[in-house]
């Protein structure tokens, strides 16, 4: 890219660079979403790679100024359902997937809580899990989640409710007394142990 040619129209380069930067800035979210729905970090990174390639090739279909995360999540999700899910989730290894990260938790106790929570999350029906991740963690709105999943907002809401109820059940939470003073989930370790043991 010679900088002595055509200084009047540096636009293509600038736009290009900013689109690349936009993509880079969303990679952590893409990986987190991909790992959450596919249940495997290996699959997650393959999914992210496919998503980046498709996004690059379809930049024209992205409306500048709109939420690029929602756009990328839609691509990633469609890719997952059209290709990866067919490979099956048997590769899933909920103990191993996130272990590299879990050891970095501030305390042993919260590492266990997180591990237990992840086992419960992995047991949810996938439509409930993806919606909980979309609206409960990724910062997207109900409306954006509805667009991404191709369903009505009311459907998103009821999936969120069912997903939460199912998680509470899997974690053995029956009442507010199972919630610790610091709002963590007390009942987690004892119950999930039984549910998850294979």
């Amino acid at each position, binding site marked *: 890219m010679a900088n002595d040619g055509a200084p009047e129209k540096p636009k*293509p380069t600038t736009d290009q660079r900013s689109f690349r930067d936009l993509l880079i800035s969303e990679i952590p979210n893409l990986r987190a979403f991909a790992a*959450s729905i596919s249940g495997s970090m290996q699959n997650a990174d393959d999914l992210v790679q496919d998503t980046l390639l498709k996004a690059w090739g379809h930049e024209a279909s992205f409306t500048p100024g709109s939420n690029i995360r929602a756009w990328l999540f839609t691509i990633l999700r469609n890719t997952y359902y059209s290709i990866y899910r067919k490979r099956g989730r048997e590769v899933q290894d909920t103990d191993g997937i996130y272990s590299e990260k879990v050891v970095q938790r501030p305390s042993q106790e919260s590492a266990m809580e997180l591990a237990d929570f992840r086992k419960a999350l992995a047991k949810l029906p996938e439509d409930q899990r993806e919606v909980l991740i979309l609206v409960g963690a990724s910062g997207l709105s109900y409306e954006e989640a509805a667009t991404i999943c191709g369903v009505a907002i009311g459907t998103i809401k009821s999936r969120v409710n069912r997903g939460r109820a199912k998680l509470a059940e899997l974690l053995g939470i029956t009442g507010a007394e199972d919630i610790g003073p610091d709002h963590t989930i007390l009942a987690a370790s004892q119950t999930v142990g039984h549910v998850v043991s294979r």
Partner: protein
Amino acid sequence: MRACALLRDAASEQELGSKMNAANPDDKPEDESQLTSPASRKPAPELDVRIQHAIGRSLQAHYNDLLSAPIPDRFLALLAELEAKESRNGE
């Protein structure tokens, strides 16, 4: 006459439907997820707000933990390569 009544009914049903979507059809069971999760047929019971919050916090802890992972070089290399290829083609 009958047809008219039917049409009217259909119309008001549609109106009701869209109102409910806009409002808060929280516990309304819907077909699609019944297919994917037979256990979820029953409407979700109202969860204590504190439980909802605890689950929300756990979801965020799960997600934020994944977010904090460093970006693998392969993705940066891929995008750099795509960009380089494009600018080569453009010249």
